């Protein structure tokens, strides 16, 4: 296990390094941020001064080494836009996104699993067909559209829900959480549900497919023949086998949800990292874009690792460390 983790960490370092090269040079070939911010009255002297101030007059490779040097010291540079260290901006906004993502995940599992199990057990009933139709719609309609329709329906027409922003927050271990206040929950409901839809659809479909496969497996038949109660069969024998593909897919999907909840965050003006990224790209805030992408790579690597470890817990056949015989 330890050997496996060390190997993984080393791999991750290489991935991170390649990533910094790609992102840094990729971001630096598009445009010049100074031209976006500059007032129309800012003349050549003023432009040159600003460019020098931001260190953009130096050759690209030199900028890269400066960046790399800072990175090794744990400093990812200051955001051009805000003048604040990029990492602190990311961590300031991350709780909002994490909260949104975890709520979406909880909704996806909490609603998706039971629906999927139902649809798998009784595939030919009308309700099952409805469930599958719902999953189809949730998966294929653009999130953007769903979000706007929800705002139109529940905020503008019915007036039940606030259309934008995050509600009151309480500080828990240094992070602001809106989950714990009624007003916060009120604000959280629509964006979390919208964000959960795709994951929910995946869960429903995977669960149903898994059910159809597993309940005909020999060991289930034997379990039934042994007279084990149906509930126990479902909750222990079927569930354990069902969860493996779901964990794999959700692990990856969840990373995506945290990293790129851009659309949902923009529509609901949720002050999270996704919205920050899209704003940063809009004005070519290079340090912030690079810092964020590096952070995301790091997060994916960690998630991957967690998924692998969860795997070994769910499925005893999977042995980490690769000592196959």
């Amino acid at each position, binding site marked *: 296990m330890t050997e496996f983790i060390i190997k993984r960490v080393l791999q991750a370092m290489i991935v991170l390094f390649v990533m910094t090269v790609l992102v840094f040079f990729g971001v630096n070939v*598009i*445009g*010049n*941020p*100074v*031209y*976006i*911010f*500059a*007032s*129309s*009255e*800012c*003349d*050549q*002297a*003023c*432009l*040159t*001064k*600003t*460019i020098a*101030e*931001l260190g953009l*007059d130096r050759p690209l490779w030199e900028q890269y080494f400066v960046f790399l040097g800072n990175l090794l010291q744990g400093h990812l540079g*200051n955001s*051009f*836009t*805000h*003048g*604040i260290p990029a990492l602190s*901006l990311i*961590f*300031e*906004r991350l709780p909002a996104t994490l909260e949104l993502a975890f709520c979406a995940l909880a909704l996806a599992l909490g609603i998706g699993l039971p629906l999927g199990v139902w649809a798998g057990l009784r595939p030919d009933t009308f309700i099952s067909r409805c469930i599958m139709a719902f999953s189809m719609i949730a998966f294929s309609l653009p999130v953007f559209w769903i979000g*706007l329709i929800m*705002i*139109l329906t529940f*905020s*503008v027409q019915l*007036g039940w829900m*606030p*259309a*934008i*922003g995050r509600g009151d*927050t309480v500080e828990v271990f*240094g992070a*602001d959480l809106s989950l714990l206040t009624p007003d916060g929950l009120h604000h959280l409901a629509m964006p979390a549900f919208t964000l959960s839809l795709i994951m929910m659809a995946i869960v429903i479909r995977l669960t149903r497919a898994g059910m159809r496969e597993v309940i005909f497996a020999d060991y289930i038949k034997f379990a039934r023949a042994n007279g084990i109660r149906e509930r126990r069969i479902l909750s222990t024998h079927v569930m354990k086998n069902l969860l493996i593909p779901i964990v794999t897919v959700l692990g990856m999907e969840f990373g995506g949800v945290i990293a790129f909840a851009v659309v949902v965050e*923009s*529509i*609901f*003006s949720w*002050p999270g990292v996704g*919205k*920050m990224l899209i*704003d940063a*790209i*809009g*004005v*070519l805030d290079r340090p912030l874009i690079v810092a964020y992408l590096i952070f995301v790579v790091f997060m994916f690597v960690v998630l991957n690792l967690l998924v692998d470890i969860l795997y070994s817990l769910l499925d005893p056949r999977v042995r980490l460390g690769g000592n196959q015989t």
Partner: protein
Amino acid sequence: MTFLKPGLFAAAVMLALPVAAQEVLTIGVRSETSSLDPHWTQLSADVQVHEHIFEKLVALDATSQPIPGLAVSWAPIDELTWEFKLREGVTWHDGEVFNADDVIFSFDRLRAGISGAPASPAFHLEKGAKQWERIDDYTIHITTSEPYPTVAEDLAMLAIVAEHAATGVTESVDFNSGLATIGTGPFMFEEYSPGNLASVVQNPNWWGGEIEWDQVVFRPITQDASRLAALLNGDVDMIDYPPTIDLPQLQEDPDFTVSTIPADRLIYLMPGYKHVEPFITDNDGNVMVPNPLRDWRVRRALSLAIDRETIRDRVMGGASLPTRNIVPPGFFGYVDALEADPYDLEEAQALLETAGYGDGFNIVLHGPNDRYVNDARILEVVAQMWSRVGITTEVDAMPRNIFFSRLIRGDELTIPGFDVPEFSMSLTGWGTVAGEATYTVSGTLETYNAATGGGNGNFGRYSNPEIDARSVLAKQMVDADERLRLLQEAITIGMDDYAYIPLHFQVNNWAMRAGLEHQPRTNERTMAMDVSRVD
């Protein structure tokens, strides 16, 4: 993490509850505030929040004309020196007294450079090589290297910060936390949470008199549809830039009010003047020599072929003011005699015939698709209109972060000062922030000169000695009447020559719930002081 000034924490908690006695104005804005350091950028989205907290020596009225701010009066005392008398009895938000030392400190801070700032307004001090001197507690002298008429307009861009609060602080960071955010303005810093909100509370000791709002909250809502939805369901009281397509509906709805004013932003098409332009080709696809856009008849034909009223009604939802001027009505330098070109296809066709381009040619029209109101759609409509007179136009719209680099500098990495603008015909805008035309003429019509800063927005590289002579003189003409004459002549010459093709001034709109009244500003800023309750 949220920045909260400890002393105001109790007030913030109280305000979070629905207390009826408090007058709170919540404004949904399109762009996020990047920093509360007033010397950090001069983007409207930032300045509009700064101006609630910080003030300038010279303030601007609704049509961007200079009025007394922290200075009560100013006048030239000789050719090169302007005397500014400061307002007495003004206190900072923490009770300290404001005087000339704060002004000197602010200018020194700007000149020393704001470390890391992407667009500091410091360059306004370099114009005319300004020097400043403290005469007494309430008098300042500004000297320039040459006679320089627009000192007041320049100082209207530079916020005054408190010497005792802003000495030795970290740029941007300490202003965002509220530590150095001590101003003299009508509102005091309360909370700033990037991307979420910026909120200010009333300054009971403001020199300017009563303020109607106890608290003002700016909430950035980037998505047009969401911003409108937030207004419709009452999350915010007021929004800037309501989507133009929804304007007619909002205007008819008795629950909402719309305020409107022509903005200082001119939208125009800029032809390239190089002998050979890569994006101008004949009908066989060969690059044309000489470039037909160098013929003024062709430029006039292109202008006549554009139906500006259709653009206004069909594309802009009525929110544009067709024009042939370069500054909006009410600004110093506006020329009454210049009227928007009519839509005249026959005349356009005839002009192209006489110029020898009766068979037409091909143009690639470049422009941004996320910078100006409906920019990409304007490009498409103009392309269709030009194609109708036989000039086949292809549109290449791109995000602004790519567009402006290519527009200003060209595609390759060039040496600063030797930029080669790339486009042969492009759509851009120019905002006359100062409320007067001197730098609009100099920036867009004067011959490009990296050393003097002349023509720094002249990316077509238009050059006309008649204009240069007047523009250079105007920049040093302290006598206002004479300067007005020079500017109006320069503008008339440029527009008669079709140096570029003006389309319209953007018309800015704000939408708010019924019961609010808003006196809008030409410079796009949304100020709580301009909003009052009428119910």
